[in-house]
């Protein structure tokens, strides 16, 4: 897709492996995004997904803890505050101004990065300000007091102020969330016009999926990291939305419309849909990439499954959001909390099969192993996936528990002073079986499914 052809505009913004969190809680984990000049990108994701944080990182208000953000090939810090403000303008959700500034005075403030703080406004500055007001269609309001305007008018004034910065990149943080529908469309039409006519690159966090589908050719679905990055047709996919937003939606094209629409489900159809899809009966415990092959394989043969508990930021978590029917989620780097463990327990009650992937066992996730053991005792079929061994001898005939234990390789990835090994041994004694490969695991599951029906 990304040819080095001459028609492809250069990269304006490069978010390169950015990790950020407050108080040791990673909020964004290893985010990679590239935005080219002239693009119009919508940023989607539920509340708390880190959309606003990403925008604040890009605007230079926050600094990434890891990774870097390049603007025009140069790191944000190197541009300096003023340099960034000469290239990036931000439109917040809402602006409270304590003083009775007039519209023109406020738009004039947008020139701050360009003017000498001592000097007065030159004629040049006044022209830019007038032009910005014209573009945002607020010239008739020039002498009105900002605080006395309606919400929609105010938002247009803020866009005008941002335009006075003559930005290459315009960041909007849910610019329409406080407006009624007329003004929502108003603002987005304005932004679209600026994008098309002036070539301003736009990144906007959006909470309204329909407006996002209508105005943004490229959408980034965000949940602590980029879950999907494509056009509306690919990103606004019901299963994906359900996993990220946690709600069933219908996506389609309304009669006579040109764009996708996302509708909340009818209350009747919620149950129908669940039944049609088939309840997942398989739970996958994974982590650290140990479940990757297995989850892909399950998705390939259309076996619905639940994954968890997985930490946000874990590569298995990101993948599970795409593939699993449901994901039991834990905070980044955090040990499994009692509440999350309770979710695992109740989910296991409905499961026929538990797949235990070869992940490292530490104090943080030892409790998962205990749940797995309880489930084994309850008589659920438990498969322990052996780690992929390159020089594995074929046809090893496992006879004793000790041999099986050896095969799981648990001793090598147990960081709990033998507690993990003990639990796995008990699981094996209680009837858990070791599968050597993903293929073997999938065959076992299919066998179980066919024997049931």
């Amino acid at each position, binding site marked *: 897709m990304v040819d080095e052809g001459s028609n492809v505009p250069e990269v304006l913004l490069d978010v390169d492996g950015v990790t950020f969190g407050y108080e040791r809680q990673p909020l964004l984990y290893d985010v990679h995004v590239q935005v080219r000049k002239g693009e119009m990108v919508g940023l989607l994701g539920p509340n708390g997904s880190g959309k606003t944080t990403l925008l*604040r990182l890009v*605007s*230079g*208000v926050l600094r990434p803890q890891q990774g870097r953000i390049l603007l025009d090939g140069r790191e944000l810090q190197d541009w300096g*505050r*003023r*340099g*960034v*403000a*000469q290239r*990036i*303008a*931000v439109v*917040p959700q809402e*602006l*409270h*101004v*304590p*003083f*009775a*500034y*007039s519209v023109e*005075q406020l738009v004039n*403030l*947008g020139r*701050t*990065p360009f*003017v000498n*703080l*001592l000097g007065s406004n030159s004629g040049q500055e006044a022209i830019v300000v007038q032009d910005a007001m014209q573009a945002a269609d607020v010239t008739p309001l020039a*002498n*009105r*007091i900002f*605080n*006395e305007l309606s919400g929609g008018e105010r938002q247009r004034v803020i866009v005008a102020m941002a335009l006075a*910065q003559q930005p290459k990149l315009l960041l909007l943080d849910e610019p329409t969330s406080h407006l009624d529908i007329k003004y929502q469309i108003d603002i987005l039409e304005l932004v679209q016009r600026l994008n098309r006519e002036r070539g301003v690159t736009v990144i906007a966090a959006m909470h309204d999926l329909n407006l996002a589908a209508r105005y943004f050719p490229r959408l980034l679905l965000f949940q602590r990291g980029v879950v999907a990055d494509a056009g509306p047709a690919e990103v606004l996919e019901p299963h994906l939305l359900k996993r990220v937003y946690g709600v069933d939606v219908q996506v389609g094209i309304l009669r006579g419309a040109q764009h996708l629409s996302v509708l909340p489900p009818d209350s009747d159809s919620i149950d129908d849909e669940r039944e049609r899809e088939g309840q997942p009966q398989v739970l996958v415990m994974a982590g650290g990439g140990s479940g990757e092959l297995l989850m892909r394989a399950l998705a390939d043969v259309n076996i619905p499954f639940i994954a968890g508990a997985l930490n946000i930021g874990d590569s298995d978590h990101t993948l599970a959001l795409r593939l699993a029917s449901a994901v039991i989620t834990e905070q980044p780097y955090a040990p499994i909390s009692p509440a999350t463990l309770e979710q695992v327990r109740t989910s296991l009650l409905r499961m026929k099969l538990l797949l235990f992937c070869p992940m490292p066992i530490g104090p943080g996730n030892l409790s998962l192993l205990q749940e797995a053991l309880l489930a084994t005792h309850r008589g659920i079929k438990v498969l322990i996936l052996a780690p992929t061994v390159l020089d594995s001898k074929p046809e090893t005939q496992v006879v004793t528990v000790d041999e099986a234990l050896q095969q799981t390789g648990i001793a090598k990835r147990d960081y709990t002073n033998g507690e993990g090994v003990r639990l796995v041994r008990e699981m094996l004694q209680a009837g858990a079986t070791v599968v050597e490969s993903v293929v073997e695991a999938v065959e076992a599951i299919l066998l179980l499914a066919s024997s049931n029906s």
Partner: protein
Amino acid sequence: MRSRVISSGGMRALPAPLLLLALGCVLLVVILIAVSFGSTSIPIGTIVQILLNGTGLFHFTRQWDPSAEVIVWQVRMPGVIGAALVGSALAVAGVLFQGMLRNPLADPFLIGTSSGAALGAAIAFVLPLDTLYGSFFLLTPLLAFVGAVLTVLLVYAIARVGGQTPVVTLLLAGVVVNAVLVAFQTLILTLSPHAQFSIVALFNWLTGGVAVTSWSPIIVVGAIILIGIVFSLTLARVLDAFGLGEEGAAHLGLHVERYKLLIIVVGSLITAAAVSISGLIGFVGLVTPHAMRLLLGPRHRLLLPASALGGAIFLTVADLLGRVVIAPAVLPVGVFTALVGAPFFLYLLRSSKRAYRW
């Protein structure tokens, strides 16, 4: 709605330089009137001639009692000029703090200046030196100044967390430190051997009054205040940007934390300088910026110089009233800043055509 727009438009139609000029003229007149009143009243014409003679450029023939010259130059002018300086310092500090904190209740004393200065003064009063108020210039004002500056720095240090100084933390730290210092001040006064005398002296000092009778303190304090005010004029655009909130200001390319510290330092220095010769005079720093904002709009380029002039006028008048109303006794200036300032402010608030909102 329509009429509001028109009236506010008309308000702005008055050119800024003209307004400042008008305020300057008012200040001049008020100063002359203030000098003319006192135990012996001196006609304003005479005062003008005496003052112009003092410049060395004019030579009016002396038709007045020679003592008048001494009274004008050595007795009244220092006091009146002192009041004007203190008024403009407090008003400008008020603009700085209200603008930076985006808080209508902010005044120059909010983040510790008052209690720090009071503690410094209290220490000066109980020290076993001859520090009778007015008889010995250096100690009381000096300790008040040092106390005020140190306290603000302490408050700032407490409020600073991880390279940031959130406004709420700053205000709360100010409140807490104020309370602690007031407690210390009470403790010192209670334990001091000649407590009764100290308490009366401190009360007089706290209620405020520009009791300066020589030029030397005026020159020192005046230099600090004038430099501070001129410097704060360069912060006008920064203060405008702070109106958008700290994040908004950062988006406009400003180093928010750096400017915040700068504003606090400038505001506190001129407040401390003012307090050192006047004691604690309330209301000027709170009301003057609001009044000027109602008259001239919120832009700091205009608001700062206008408040400097307005504060000077306000305090000169209050000081005059304090000296005149029950002459020969002198009433504390703070009484009149409140008695004159509050009704005037309420009048402005009520009669303003457009809603005055924060």
